[in-house]
């Protein structure tokens, strides 16, 4: 039996430890905010936070999640920065088909948690593991930059 927390709530799974975390999240725990794109670590659509670190859940076996904390888009959207990211993505037109969006928001969260005031280059590097086939990325970068500026103001003026 494998146990971990999903968005702060203790959960467990009796699946084989080599089961992809992605499959456990979607098929067993019903968290459909996690998307499967390529299934081989190229596209970032299945990105989640594992103990605060960005990972592609298609490449993480369940066994390695035991005892850890998993955060997905479904949990992040309930946080202040998660809400800010969702609103900024909508405002900037950073969502078209939306399939890549949860992964991109998780990557943005991982970036902003480590560096609250990234410049444009740092934002592009932080999002480099996520593919979007609709937007051309400009609006996504703008959305993340906007949240970084809001965060900066909230903390008293940025850098």
């Amino acid at each position, binding site marked *: 039996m494998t146990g971990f927390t999903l968005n702060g709530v203790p959960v467990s799974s009796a699946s084989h430890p080599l089961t992809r975390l992605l499959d456990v999240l979607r098929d067993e725990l019903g968290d459909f905010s996690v998307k499967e794109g390529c299934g081989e670590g190229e596209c*970032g659509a299945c990105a989640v936070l594992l103990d605060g670190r*960005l990972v592609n859940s298609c490449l993480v076996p369940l066994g390695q999640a035991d005892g850890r904390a998993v955060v997905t888009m479904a949990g992040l959207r309930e946080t202040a920065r998660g809400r800010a990211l969702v609103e900024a993505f909508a405002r900037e037109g950073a969502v078209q088909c939306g399939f890549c969006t949860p992964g991109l928001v998780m990557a943005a969260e991982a*970036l902003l948690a480590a560096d609250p005031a990234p410049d444009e280059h740092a934002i592009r590097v932080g999002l480099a593991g*996520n593919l979007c086939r609709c937007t051309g990325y400009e609006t996504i970068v703008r959305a993340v930059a906007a949240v970084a500026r809001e965060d900066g103001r909230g903390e008293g003026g940025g850098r």
Partner: protein
Amino acid sequence: MIDTFRPSSLEEALEIRASRRAVPFAGGTDLMVKLRRGAGVLPGFEHPVLFLDRCAELAVLRDDGAALEIGAMVTLARLAADPLVPGPLAEVARSMAGPGIRSVATVGGNVCNASPAADLLPFLYSHNARVRLISRSTRRTLPVEEFVRGPGATEVGPDELLAALIVPGWSPTVSFWRKAGTRRANALTKVSLFACADTDGAVVHRARLALGAVAPTVVRLREVERMLEGAAVADLGAVARRALDACAAAVRPIDDQRSTADYRRTAACGLVEHFIARGLGGRRA
């Protein structure tokens, strides 16, 4: 059903490795891709699996003054950010994959996967790095260059684990890393060069060059190194012409899904030329 183990000590891991012949699982970013069978289906592992992510002894990173020891389970993210890591090696780490891969992919995994396109290998070859292999009863080190036998093949024994990389201390005055891929992030290397040298601006004293993805293993360009060492910077234009012939003769590239042999040979020589011209200050031939 495939058994899995997730020991919390190296001693326990070595015991399982020996008794169960379990497959070491580091970050898993190569294994999970190689063995993937799609949504809702278990990856196709055929042997017991040994998760190493709880073995703290394998995640050490320390510098004793003579050499940097990098534990096999040190992640690429840590390699890119830890102040103990020399700048050129951190740059190589930052050029690999994307953030979500770097946070779990490991140094040991990259080396043991032994791909000719493994991006840490050219740096490690150029610095004469060694690997430390341990089992319950043995402990040995050997040069990375001898450890890697061919694509996916290494000297690791059935009861051994790669514990650490040992990188001798050396801060070359010039370091150069270029990888050609289809894009900057998340792209596997078509061809790469790590090159470094000591130079006082007038004479090149020590030079090391290692090419990735141009042969079954990474290739040290020893003939080119000999041509460069002792050469006056003013003469590098003439040296470069001979060096490119030596480079072309040293590589054995193939056509595959990522590139062609022709492109790889041409680009490899171009990178060497670029290093000599821009890195070492040699004028164009």
